[in-house]
């Protein structure tokens, strides 16, 4: 079977200037000086693949490159080196949001986001009530998002990402935000995902969640692949690291 995500020798470097120059004057003044920046190797020579229908966990300490990796998979960043092949549609959920606009209502944001994720307006309309129901925001959809609590914001964002029906869902530290009931509901939804053969990449520090849901785990250490494989085995390695 062809993997749905294939990553080969992926590297991503960021140039971190010692001090950021935002004006032309500062840049002109610095032309003759030595360029002063460090290279941060956020992701370093990473290769792995994810099969269709797999629940794939990504663990690692802060700064190990998990979020950068997700952003590359979501095509927000371009790799410095290496190849990424994604054979399906992606709904990314990174940095606790999907890019809502605070001055639009919940309803308008849902349509905007659904369209950005690749649905037609008609398709969003078909899924709209399901999304609202899942987010438990029936009474608030005509309110501006700026008046939402952070919990409401995340619930709506997450419901859209879950229910637009893309092949792949990228989740970066999301389940830690909702309350217990909402988390339970998400886990139930995950079970449906498994039946529908949808692929989920889960980045989290909650090892319990990883153990419960993930078939495979990738363990990142400072941008490098430390281990990849069957969940329990990798998690044991990670805990004893």
């Amino acid at each position: 079977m062809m993997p749905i995500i294939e990553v080969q020798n992926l590297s991503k470097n960021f140039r971190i200037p010692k001090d950021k120059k935002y004006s032309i004057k500062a840049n002109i003044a610095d032309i003759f000086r030595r360029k002063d920046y460090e290279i941060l190797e956020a992701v370093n020579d990473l290769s792995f693949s994810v099969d269709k229908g797999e629940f794939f966990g990504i663990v690692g300490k802060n700064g190990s490159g998990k979020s950068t990796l997700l952003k590359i998979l979501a095509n927000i960043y371009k790799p410095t080196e290496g190849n990424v092949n994604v054979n399906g549609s992606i709904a990314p959920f990174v940095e606790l949001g999907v890019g809502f606009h605070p001055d639009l209502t919940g309803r308008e944001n849902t349509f905007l986001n659904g369209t950005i994720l690749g649905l037609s307006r008609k398709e969003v309309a078909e899924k709209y009530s399901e999304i609202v129901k899942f987010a438990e925001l029936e009474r608030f959809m005509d309110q501006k998002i700026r008046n939402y609590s952070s919990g409401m914001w995340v619930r709506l964002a997450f419901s859209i990402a879950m229910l637009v029906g893309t092949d792949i869902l990228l989740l970066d530290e999301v389940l830690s935000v909702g309350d217990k009931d909402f988390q339970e509901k998400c886990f139930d939804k995950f079970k449906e995902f498994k039946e529908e053969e949808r692929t989920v990449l889960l980045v989290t520090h909650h090892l319990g969640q990883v153990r419960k849901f993930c078939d495979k785990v990738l363990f990142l250490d400072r941008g490098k692949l430390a281990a990849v494989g069957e969940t329990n085995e990798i998690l044991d390695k990670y805990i004893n690291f």
Partner: protein
Amino acid sequence: MSKIRRSNNYFELLWVLAKTDFKLRYQGSVLGYLWSLLKPFLMFVVLYVVFSVFMRWEIAHYQLYLLLGIIIWNFFAEGTMAGLNTFLTKSEVMKKIYFPRILIVLASTISAFISLLLNVLVFLLIYLFSGMDLHAWMLFFPVYLILIYLFVVGISLFLSVLQVKYRDVEQIWEVLLQAGFFITPIIYPLMMVPEKYWFYLFLNPVTGIIQYSRKLIIEQSLPSLSGTLYVFLFIVFVVVFGYWVFNKLSYKVIEEL
């Protein structure tokens, strides 16, 4: 990177983004969309009073010349200003979801273009009200509207990525727009400028677009074809160049947002 979207409904996405942009532009204001009409017309009233009433310029159809010039220039200024700030104002969504980045720049220019079309509609009403009549030359007017739109797109593509790297861009562009407003024959008729300077005025394609539109609509005659060709080639160059720069840099600048 292979297909990330399920369907390629980019036109629909573009339209939704443009509508959102238009909606957000005047959000929170009581008069709302009306501002897109009021702004150029208030400017028109001030300039008309100053030049026609105070300074007593007596030029046939001055009010129509002035209004058309202001409407076109206003679109050029607002469109490019909105376009160049796209990455900064829309950073929230660009940092989180992929979609072709060019769409969001196009969306903000389209939203300004909608304002232009509304303004043109009001202009035509005033035009008819002044006792002028409809004529066949007007059918060529959309050509110039499309040209000025493309010019705005080209400049926006180039400036928007530059603006992320250097925040001075906005300040510089504002000064240039300010200067351009006076260097372009908008308030004063071209005839007042010594002919030896015309060449320089027409180097700026906006001058051509404004003059040719006036000639077409108000003077009801065919504008210079070679001039139009120059405007067209200049704008094509700017669009191609802007697109090239945008393609080269748009991924990079997102990392800096």
